[in-house]
């Protein structure tokens, strides 16, 4: 819809409104009312699609007031007023009279409607006008008005807490809750008291028992509120627990899953300290929950399934016999299928693992590629978790031959994990694994896993070196995880089958040492130096046999699961995180404008410690070059070996981290070592987490003139470090000193960074554009800032950050201290250069 068209129609509406308002006196007939209704409908339609209709506030009011007795019109008027009250508090004041008058109308429907709208205006300084209509509403003869009045209390509470507390309204609600005959009024009282933080008023025995006795009078939603409130109640003794459960047992037969889930939660929480009864409850809820997930309503089934998963992880045995319930059905959406696969994995034990794996195998042929992958993963997971069940590993091996490359890739990954857990099954697996070729496994993770297996078990796979050979020549084209895995695998295999691998190792090491990726480069260098020092020690480090892993870390720790279980029947279960992770401090009724600005950009330095090393390693780049020279010249000298000089403490560190990485398990993102020395204090201090929206950045950047421009030369090591890890390391480093990244990108050799910072106490933001040109070996930086005083200090600060990147191009300090001592055994640090 064109803007002009809507503007034209708005003008038309305005004219119609005016003419209708003026003629009202004479033609009060039905036609006028119909015409007014039509024009109001149009207005509401525009409101819905987001067009601002507030400018005709007066006309709308006049037009409606003259036909005051028409309820349809009145309702639309109320809707209009409530929509724009907040942005037009002055005009809203004019409507107060009309609304308070309607609050005293004869018709309870109108009284209720007016009261509801009155409370919904959300204008804080009008609260005084609302209090007395609410007070009267709470005493109204008609339940409809009382329900509305109770909710009104909450609306005012969010606007002006003190007004509600001073008027003693919460106490009134508490009385109403006990006395009122209308169940919905009672339910609303419960909701409001709970929201107003007066939940402790709800949990006395004298309140809970009568509520439960009349639970069937409540609507299904109100039943949920009651059950939720009661779940905070601590029964006096076990008998009372049983009484409550007996009263509520038939709630488990309700067709509304919300009622059933609220009941389940109550039962589970009541019996937490009574383990045998708790087990009975779990038994009891099995059937009702299964019925709820079988209805053909996927959305509600999803919520129930998420709870099933939680319970199944806590008590898998209970459900191990009903595993067929969780077999996927052809017409289910993927979110249901995914959950079901997880439940099946959780339920698998000695009694059902074979049947479950058989079913999962069928899904591997599914047209839905993601489902097929998840099925492979699930089979792998079951193979790891459930021991001594034949046939499962065979199924996994069978997946290697499906001819679908993504299935092969997933299967290889699972087999790799399986070998880590049970090295003894290697013999059974290797024949199948060696029958595939690396080019069959196209996905990086799968290929890395395949390479790992070849490296680790190369002594048993005759073709291993020849399978790896083509990868060596295409080394530079492989993705980073594959390069790392290949380096590790070739390193290991070299010690097992030196004659066949020597050339391959040479090719790979040469390629890797020239690699632009930090991790690949560093690891290659490590191998190279180790080999130069002593092949024997290198074998000890690189070719160390791996201990079997007895237990893989689970996605969720049991503690986390317990915390989520405490929040049963809430979003925490579905989102799989305690509510503290996704609920922010409530800001009900906060001004909309404040919310329109999204929270700061996500570029927050999450692990400050990790980033801190920034400039501490400044000089190590030069050190490193020197070290290579000296170590080659000293290569033959019988100087003390790495291990003996570094002392017992250093060796485990080195080998442990090396081994871990050789597994390819930690991928490319192993944490940078932390240097103890803090960065030199910058002359300009920046706020640690500046906040700027992309829109604001763009606007300021467009309007400001450049305050400074400079070009800064960068050594290759700094360039590589900036480029590494998709710029993230660099951005994290700058983030740690308070320079946040708005955007970064570009393709080699040119990268662009847009950043911003807020000088501590300074009046305005500093905006920055840095264009890093790899071919020219420099960065061109443009600064924009309103406050000229901040520009030079900031420029200095940023230069230091760029320089610091050169220092990153080193191995960790632990290794270095070892190397330094090896070299001369005496001095340390730059003095040696």
């Amino acid at each position, binding site marked *: 819809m064109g803007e002009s068209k809507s503007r034209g129609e708005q003008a038309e509406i305005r004219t119609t409104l005016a003419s209708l308002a003026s003629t009202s006196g004479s033609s009060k007939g039905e036609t006028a009312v119909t015409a007014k209704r039509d024009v109001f*409908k149009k207005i509401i339609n525009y409101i*819905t*699609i987001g067009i601002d209709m507030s400018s005709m506030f007066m006309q709308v009011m006049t037009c409606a007031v003259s036909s005051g007795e028409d309820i*349809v019109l009145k*309702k639309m008027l109320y809707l209009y007023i409530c929509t724009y009250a*907040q942005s037009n508090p002055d005009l809203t004041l004019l409507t107060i009279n009309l609304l308070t008058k309607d609050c005293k109308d004869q018709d309870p429907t109108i009284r209720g*409607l007016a009261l*509801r709208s009155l409370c919904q205006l959300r204008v804080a300084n009008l609260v005084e006008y609302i209090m007395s209509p609410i007070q009267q509403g709470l005493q109204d003869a008609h339940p409809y008005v009382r*329900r509305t009045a109770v*909710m009104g209390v909450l609306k005012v509470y969010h606007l002006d807490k003190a007004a509600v507390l001073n008027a003693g309204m919460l106490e009134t609600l508490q009385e109403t809750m006990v006395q009122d005959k209308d169940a*919905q009024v009672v339910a609303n009282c419960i*909701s409001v008291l709970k929201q107003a933080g007066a939940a402790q008023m709800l949990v006395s025995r004298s309140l809970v028992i009568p509520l439960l006795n009349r639970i069937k009078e409540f609507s299904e*939603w109100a039943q*949920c509120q009651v059950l*939720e409130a009661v779940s905070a109640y601590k029964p006096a003794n076990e008998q009372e627990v049983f009484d409550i459960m007996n009263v509520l047992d*038939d709630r488990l*037969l309700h*067709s509304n899953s*919300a009622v*059933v*889930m609220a009941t389940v939660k109550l039962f589970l929480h009541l019996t937490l300290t009574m383990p045998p009864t708790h087990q009975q409850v779990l038994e009891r809820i099995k*059937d*009702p929950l*299964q*019925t709820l997930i*079988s*209805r053909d309503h*996927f*959305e*509600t089934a*999803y*919520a*129930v399934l998420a709870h099933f998963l939680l319970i199944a992880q806590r008590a898998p045995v209970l459900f191990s016999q009903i595993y*067929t319930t969780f*077999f996927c*059905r*052809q*017409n289910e959406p*993927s*979110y249901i299928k995914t959950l079901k696969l997880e439940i099946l994995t959780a339920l698998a034990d000695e009694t059902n693992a074979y049947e479950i794996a058989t079913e999962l195998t*069928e899904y591997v*042929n599914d*047209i839905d590629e*993601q489902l097929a992958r998840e099925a492979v993963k699930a089979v792998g997971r079951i193979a790891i978790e459930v021991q001594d069940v034949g046939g499962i590993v065979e199924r996994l091996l069978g997946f290697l031959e499906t001819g679908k490359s993504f299935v092969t890739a997933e299967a290889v990954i699972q087999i790799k994990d399986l070998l880590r857990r049970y090295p003894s099954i290697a013999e059974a697996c290797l024949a199948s694994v060696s029958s595939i070729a690396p080019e069959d496994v196209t996905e990086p993770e799968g290929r890395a896993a395949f390479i790992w297996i070849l490296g680790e078990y190369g002594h048993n796979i005759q073709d291993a070196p020849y399978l790896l050979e083509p990868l060596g020549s295409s080394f530079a084209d492989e993705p980073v995880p594959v390069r790392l895995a290949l380096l590790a695998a070739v390193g290991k295999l070299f010690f097992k089958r030196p004659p066949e691998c020597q050339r391959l190792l040479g090719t790979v090491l040469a390629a890797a040492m020239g690699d632009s990726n930090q991790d690949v480069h560093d690891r290659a260098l490590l191998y190279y130096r180790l080999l130069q020092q002593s092949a024997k020690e290198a074998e000890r480090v690189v070719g160390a046999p791996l201990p079997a892993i007895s237990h893989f870390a689970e996605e969720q720790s049991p503690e986390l699961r317990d915390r989520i279980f405490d929040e049963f029947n*809430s*979003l925490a279960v*579905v*989102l799989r995180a305690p*509510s503290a992770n*996704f*609920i922010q401090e*409530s*800001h009900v*009724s*906060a001004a*909309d404008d404040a*919310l*329109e600005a*999204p*929270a700061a950009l996500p570029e927050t330095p999450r692990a400050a410690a990790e980033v801190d090393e920034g400039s501490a390693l400044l000089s190590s780049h030069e050190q490193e070059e020197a070290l290579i020279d000296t170590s080659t010249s000293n290569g033959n000298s019988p100087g003390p070996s790495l291990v003996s000089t570094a002392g017992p403490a250093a060796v485990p560190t080195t080998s442990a981290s090396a081994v871990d990485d050789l597994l390819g398990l930690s991928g490319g993102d192993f944490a940078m070592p932390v240097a103890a020395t803090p960065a030199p204090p910058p002359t300009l201090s920046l706020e640690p987490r500046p906040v700027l929206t992309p829109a604001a950045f763009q606007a300021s950047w467009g309007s400001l003139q450049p305050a400074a421009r400079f070009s800064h030369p960068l050594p290759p090591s700094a360039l590589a470090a900036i480029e590494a890890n998709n710029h993230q390391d660099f951005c994290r480093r700058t983030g740690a000193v308070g320079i946040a990244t708005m955007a970064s990108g570009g393709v080699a050799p040119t990268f662009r960074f847009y950043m911003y910072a807020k000088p501590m106490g300074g009046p305005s933001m500093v905006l920055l554009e840095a264009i890093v040109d790899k071919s020219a070996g420099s960065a061109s930086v443009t600064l924009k800032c309103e406050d000229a005083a901040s520009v030079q200090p900031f420029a200095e600060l940023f230069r230091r950050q760029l320089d610091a990147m050169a220092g990153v191009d080193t191995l960790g300090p632990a290794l270095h201290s070892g190397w330094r001592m090896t070299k001369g055994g005496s001095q340390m640090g730059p003095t040696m250069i």
Partner: protein
Amino acid sequence: MISQFFILSPRGDTIIMRDYLGNVPKASSEVFFRKVNFWDKGGRDAPPVFNVDGVSYLYVKDGGVFLVATTRENVSPSLVLELLKRIGGIIKDYCGLLSEEAVRKNFVLLYELLDEVIDYGYPQNSSSEALKEFVLNEPTMLKPSKSKGDGLFPGVGKGPTGVIKSILDTSRTEGKAREEIFVDIVEKISCTFSSSGHVQTSQIDGAIQVKSYLTGNPAIAIALNDSLVIGRRETSGATDYGGYRHGSDTVMLDDCNFHQSVSLDRFETERTLQLVPPDGEFAVMNYRSTYPFKPPFRVSTTVEEDPNSALKAIINIRITPDFGGDKAASGLEVVVPMPREVARVHCELGRDAKSGAATQSWDWQEKARRLVWKFKRVQGGVEHSLRVRATLSEGWGAGIKKSIGPINLQFTIPMYCASRLQVRYLQILKEHKGHQPYRWVRYVTLSNSYVVRT
């Protein structure tokens, strides 16, 4: 509770928007739509609950539109999703159906309804019945589109999901509108056959749906089979096929649940449900049975190498409707996914198709790599077969046989009830003055997930 409620069209336009707490940005509907459309890069269905920047989005998709609630609180997902589902139901009750057009045509009515259903984010009055008192706008009814097929009950033309009628019909034009009540037993069956033709798993998910247009809301009684057994008996071993094998008329259910309005006083002894049906459509009882039943269709396939051509395979599919000749399935579709090696297919309908050639057809959907064999109508007991000549992109291999399928069937069988649950009688407990309301009791069985592995 909930901060906002909105309805989005399939293209993402906001067609209804209600903000209750004002603590979620106005752009939430755009955030929602983008997220749903590009879940996992657009390849998968977005889950009904997700969180973006501290705002939780819960949605239900029905009639092509999204019913969405946003919240910043840790609410019960079941509560919000059930509420959204209920709102969808209310719209159907008032407008006759739920679709983008129905919502657009009736948005003022819907605002009116929503005002009563939710106050400040808390659910209030949600029964279509009780809402009538507060609703003044008249619904604008839509004609159902013809393309939607014949509905659930082709013969009858009306059904719980086929009746396009607002509940305001009886209340506003008392006396003139037809007094009628529909009681339908709708069963959805899931059945998985192994490649050797055995039933691996099966389940019936059933519901007794009631849609009442009776004035004065009289109580009704629905009597079910006397021999209804609910709950898995401890004694039932693998050999116990319920009553089915022995030919008795025992109906076995695993579990069931009931609508709020149902009184179970006479259920334990007489298997009779008593209730005062509120206006609108609802499920009186949902039930679930995993006891074996007779599958209505059997499918067998053979895959062979073509002796005349190395690059061809011959697939024979035979389908046997295993129910009485007095009944007929409608809209049967047999979907056969084909492996990558199959470049194209050509099919010959069986000789039997001569008489009913018009009711059968086949369609090769190249992009989705599947063959669909369609029937307008399949009479019970009459076998059909299809001979497929598939052209292969590479030579015949044993792997091809394995990678065809699994075959999936979709169908509707009116007046058929897989569990054999029956309504013995439907009684309207009210003094009649020579005027009998129409009472419809109907049965239908639909496929839910009917999979034949190959």
